[in-house]
């Protein structure tokens, strides 16, 4: 039997001990552990790596701590716009969805695009319709709301900046400008 292994991530950025409380650290560690165990259960029973990565990502999308699914950040219009993709190393087939805001688990929609459509990437209303027609759970966009991300968005608006999902610890001066510098001739 080949060596089975699963690796996950929950986002990168200015994540420092200073800003982390023991409770938060424990919650993030638990969230990642749940994801690893969800995928490992599949691999251990000779399931596919595709099913393992899907299962792991679904648990992270359902965990409001992480910027995906529930707990996603807010756009400049105060919406949650999500994206996801998946790829099979054996067949090199791939599926992705972008700019969706009512599919409970975007990674499941990406998998559907790979398995049940001739396409690789579907966006917006078309992607949502495809997901709905194939039985995926569609939720009201309020499902994705978390106060933590909403407050982060309010802070971004105040500083007229854009933030990477884990750069909240950085000084707002370090956040991204909403407009590229105007280059004057």
């Amino acid at each position, binding site marked *: 039997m080949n060596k089975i292994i699963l690796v996950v991530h929950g986002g990168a950025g200015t994540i420092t001990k200073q800003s982390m409380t023991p409770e938060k650290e424990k919650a993030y560690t638990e969230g990642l552990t749940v994801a690893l165990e969800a995928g490992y259960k599949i691999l251990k029973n000779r399931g596919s790596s595709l099913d393992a990565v899907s299962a792991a990502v679904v648990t992270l999308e359902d965990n409001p701590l992480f910027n*995906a699914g529930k707990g996603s950040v807010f756009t400049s219009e105060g919406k949650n716009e999500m994206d*996801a993709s998946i*790829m099979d190393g054996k067949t090199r087939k791939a599926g992705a969805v972008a700019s969706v805001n009512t599919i409970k688990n975007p990674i499941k929609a990406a998998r559907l695009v790979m398995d049940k459509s001739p396409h690789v990437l579907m966006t917006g209303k078309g992607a949502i319709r495809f997901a709905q027609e194939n039985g995926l759970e569609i939720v009201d966009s309020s499902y994705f709301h978390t106060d933590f991300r909403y407050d982060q968005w309010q802070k971004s608006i105040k500083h007229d900046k854009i933030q990477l999902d884990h750069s909240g610890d950085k000084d707002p001066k370090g956040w991204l400008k909403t407009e590229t510098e105007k280059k004057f001739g």
Partner: protein
Amino acid sequence: TVGAVALDANGNLAAATSTGGMTNKKWGRIGDSPIIGAGTYANNNTCAVSCTGHGEYFIRDVVAYDISALMEYKKLSLKDAAEEVVMKKLVTDGGEGGIIAVDKDGNYTMTFNSEGMYRGVITADGKVWVGIYK
């Protein structure tokens, strides 16, 4: 952003990435996560990769595919290919973030140039390791 890469008992690799994007991003802005080759890539001959970070740079540098290509054409190891792309090319271009990847032999790497990355691995014996800071 969240992601996972895996190698199964049949030797098949897979990668998956999902994200809410950037806070206060412009309407319709897309990052690297749904873009195959940028935020997600898998090829049984080389590796499976999932990325997280400043998406615009990961798109321009075609990060996930670039790591696979360095392995395929320059025969770099997974670790060396990831270092080359994440710790040199991305840093030179100003792109902050990281990747997780596993190769066809079960070697893995969690390479990032930011101050931290939420990450974890579970090996064949069921042992779990989770990390947050550098």
